């Protein structure tokens, strides 16, 4: 017989290394001779979209299209240390560092524009599409390229380069009581799923799924959705498929034919709801979501299984074998 059930899993997740560890990101912003802007930062693009998100932050600050940002992150010889691409920290930490570097560059560009335009103040200057102009008299303008040229002439062909650095604030917890402010910011996420359990075989199928994800602010909604989809699939694998088959320290399942990760047919459509609640200390309010998006999956499925067949599965992965055994035991 096939039985259906619904379940929810709600979680919070604290970003960063935490516990007062110096969680530092550094970035360099450079005005290139052609008027484009280069960002140098040692933050890895592992597939999560760091390059895009972080470029968007720089583009926003400098009022230029995304295509005008040259993002360099692949080489220790040219990039400053921006910490690890982990702990969901790149958007928040490195995003902040890049925002600061970009703002510093913006201030420098304003300063040079004031000189170039021979005006008496930067008040009222605006930046858009690679130009600095006077808001009240827009024809009084100078392009980034012109500013780059001028700077280069005045500074022995050097380019205008500025730095930005950001350190997340956390405190070391008390060793006896664990009291303190160990992480910041916290991200929230809730999953709801409907499952169908085959009581004759113990197979679990997820028939419906929804995720409501706090993001602070979505820098790139499509990328946020992509993270949610991916976290969900990994969560499904964790809960009902993946098992290394450890026996006396040996992984019996260490190939993709026996370590089963979900296929396209195992993953249902997922409703993704982005909840925005900008965080004051975050770049444009954006919080990290790479990890939170997978955390609520397992408990939602486990609670749905209980709702469907009345058994509490306290051990994952819930293989058909384990579930059928539990169902039969409960019937006895």
């Amino acid at each position, binding site marked *: 017989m096939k039985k259906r059930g619904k379940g929810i899993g709600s979680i919070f997740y604290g970003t960063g290394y*935490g516990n007062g560890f110096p969680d530092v990101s550094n970035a360099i912003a450079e005005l290139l001779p052609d008027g484009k802007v280069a960002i140098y930062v040692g933050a890895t693009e592992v597939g999560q979209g760091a*390059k895009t998100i972080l470029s968007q932050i720089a583009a926003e600050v400098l009022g230029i299209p995304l295509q005008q940002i040259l993002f360099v992150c692949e080489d*220790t010889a040219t990039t400053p240390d921006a910490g690890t691409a982990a702990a969901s920290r790149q958007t928040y930490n490195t995003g902040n560092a890049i925002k600061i570097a970009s703002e510093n560059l913006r201030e420098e560009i304003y300063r040079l524009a004031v000189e170039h335009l021979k005006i008496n103040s930067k008040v009222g200057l605006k930046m858009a599409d690679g130009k600095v102009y006077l808001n009240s008299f827009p024809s009084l303008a100078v392009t980034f390229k012109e500013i780059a040229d001028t700077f280069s002439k005045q500074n022995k062909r050097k380019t205008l380069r500025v730095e930005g650095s950001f350190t997340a604030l956390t405190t070391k917890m008390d060793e*006896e009581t664990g009291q303190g402010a160990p992480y910041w910011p*916290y991200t929230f996420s809730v999953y709801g799923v409907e499952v169908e359990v085959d009581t004759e075989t113990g197979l679990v199928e997820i028939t419906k799924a929804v995720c409501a994800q706090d993001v602070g602010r979505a820098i790139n909604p499509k990328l946020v959705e992509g993270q949610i989809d991916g976290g969900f699939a990994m969560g499904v*694998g964790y809960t009902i498929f993946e098992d290394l088959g450890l026996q006396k320290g040996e992984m019996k399942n*260490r190939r993709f034919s026996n370590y089963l990760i979900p296929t396209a047919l195992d993953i249902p459509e997922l409703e993704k709801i982005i909840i925005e609640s900008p965080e004051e200390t975050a770049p444009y309010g954006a919080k990290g979501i790479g990890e939170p998006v997978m955390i609520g999956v*397992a408990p939602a499925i486990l609670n749905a299984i209980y709702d469907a067949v009345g058994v509490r599965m306290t051990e994952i992965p819930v293989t058909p074998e384990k579930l059928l055994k539990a169902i039969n035991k409960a019937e006895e």
Partner: protein
Amino acid sequence: MKFKTVGHSEVRVDAMAKVIGEATYPEDFYMKDMLWGKTLRSTKAHAHVNLDTQDAEKMEGVIKVFTYRDVPDNHHGVVLKDHEVFCSKKVRRIGDPLAFVVAISNKIAEKALKTIKVEYNEIPAIFDPVEAMMKDAPLVHENHKSNIIFHYKLRRGNIEEAFKKCAVIIEKQYKCGMVDHGFLQPEAGLAYMDGDTVVVCAATQYPHFDQLEVAEALHISQEKVRIINPAVGGAFGGREDITMQVHLALATKVLGRPIKTVYSREESFLAHSKRHPMVMTYKTGADANGKLLAMEAELVGDTGAYASWAINVMRKAGVHATGPYEIPNVKVDSYAVYTNNPFAGAMRGFGATQVPIAHEQQMDMIAEELDIDPITIRLINGFTLGSTTATGQVLSDSVPLKECIEAVENSLGIKNHYEEKMEELAMEAGVGI
């Protein structure tokens, strides 16, 4: 506030190269006069070892076999430096690297690997983290007096008193298994000399830390190491600890030629970290209205043969053990324990992924006992702006948990579903009478 770029679903800047097949991952680099490396790995979980590499070294096409003797400072690790680059005296897990064969072709390197004689003298091993905590358990690392490498304590309020006031108390133990990141791109790398600088090209999550690890192991200054981090085929925490970086750097520095190595899927499983399996023992109590009053949890995390990020993972697990709920009285003990299992480290969620398997089922059980639906119990207890966490931290900004819960409820209708189910059950019970 209106933004021009932020908030817009811009096309990924790296996607073009990826859809046309031009994105270069480490295995896509080839160099002239390149040599190939293969790693010999332990097949025993806990043993003293002796290597005889003579036959391999004599093989035609083999350039050199590297072992611990060749490594200036034979250690690495993200927190504790408890990994050896190549095991010197003993292996602590299946998959520990023992030697690195460099040959003119991959095929020869593979063949040479099979000619290395490894003498294993097995010693008692420990695979269960709870047993590993006991006094007489075999020690995985002799320089640690115990296999317990970390104990995080969280103490808030008075749980004994609070449990006395509870209308319902749920006690249960939960277990979650060890899993792999399963990123699609198995580890690969290429190293070469650029003047006197060692250049290592490998997929990593943290190039600057790899730079430090390579420099330390080779005993050279950090400026003489350059890490190039090309396209990375997924990571999820599994590329936090280094795998082949020092092997490649050492080989190219000694031999002066480019060296490449590519792991098979199986070797990838053996080489990188795993998610910590945990045994989580929970006791949670609430008053008759469903308000949580107390929670006690013991978390035992199996970090396998090496610490990797275990300290930070089990700390994070401890801090997140309550779930996103205000509980005035909390006691958490979270332990990281060595065993002879594959080593566990960072993986998406980092300790915060395991505990919800416990706390969220505890919540539902408490709710069921009190005949409260799963949504309401979470709204009663969930963090809101200004809430204080179990560590005493005040959530001063951006706490949209309730919005998240309500959004899911609006979509899935859990409350209604719960009430209908209760009615059905009541009807059935009624019929029974």
